[in-house]
């Protein structure tokens, strides 16, 4: 069952990832990215990260990607034009090279990774909201506060950039 769920959602993630790259229209790419994020959230659940799975859906799929879709709709961005000086030869070589590179990486990971036991759903229960919160507000308190400053800077920056006069 664990393997089946992994295979299904890994398949969806890879399919959506490929779709993101090959689709010419930004909206189609954005929806594929949402598909990747959703299936990754399921995989996080499988790895015992229930809080991070919910955060993934709320923050990534529910806020960041809505912002992307909003901007695409606002700018009425159309499909990419075809007026590019890239030979089709380079494109096919690129696909082959990417596949070869990924195959090599997979082989290296497979060979180098020390033998650990496989992933079974429910074996790791430490990813609850309680555990994440406890660690976040004790050990990682300083980085947490720094990110809040970062967010504040980002808000001010976005507002300055979005003004009418620039």
């Amino acid at each position, binding site marked *: 069952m664990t393997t089946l769920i992994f295979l299904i959602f890994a398949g969806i*993630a890879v399919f959506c*990832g490929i779709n993101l*790259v090959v689709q010419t229209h*930004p909206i189609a790419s954005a929806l594929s990215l949402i598909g990747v994020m959703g299936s990754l959230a399921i*995989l996080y659940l499988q790895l015992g990260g229930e809080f991070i799975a919910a955060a993934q859906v709320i923050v*990534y799929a529910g806020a960041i990607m809505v912002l992307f879709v909003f901007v695409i709709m606002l700018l009425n961005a159309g499909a990419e034009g075809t007026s590019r000086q890239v030979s089709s030869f380079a494109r096919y070589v690129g696909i082959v090279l990417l596949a070869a590179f990924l195959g090599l990486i997979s082989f290296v990971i497979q060979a180098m990774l020390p033998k650990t*036991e496989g*992933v079974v759903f429910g074996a*790791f229960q430490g990813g609850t909201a309680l555990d994440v919160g406890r660690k976040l507000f004790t050990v990682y308190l300083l*980085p947490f506060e720094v990110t809040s400053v970062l967010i504040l800077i980002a808000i001010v920056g976005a507002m300055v950039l979005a003004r009418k006069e620039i």
Partner: protein
Amino acid sequence: MQNAVPMSWYLILSAILFGLGVAGFIYRRNIITVFMSIELMLNAVNLTFIAFSYTLRQVDGHIFSFFVMVVAAAEAAVGLAIILTVFKNRETLMIDDVSSMKY
């Protein structure tokens, strides 16, 4: 069917997604799609963090990916504001056309 997924599968999936993100970043010409490819790479890295967190039985990986999400949110806010400004000034979203600083 075996009932435990090998840890390496998660890492390979993460590598594939990261590779697709890099490919999209290089291949696509629309600023927004390029930006989304970056988000795909961040997601792939998050998966690695969570997978290692499982192996080590520690919650720290979750915290790392939480921070990655926060940074991605900040980045999306600023990045999309920049894209809006670029579009307002140049009426284009193709990165090939935004090249006045290049030469």
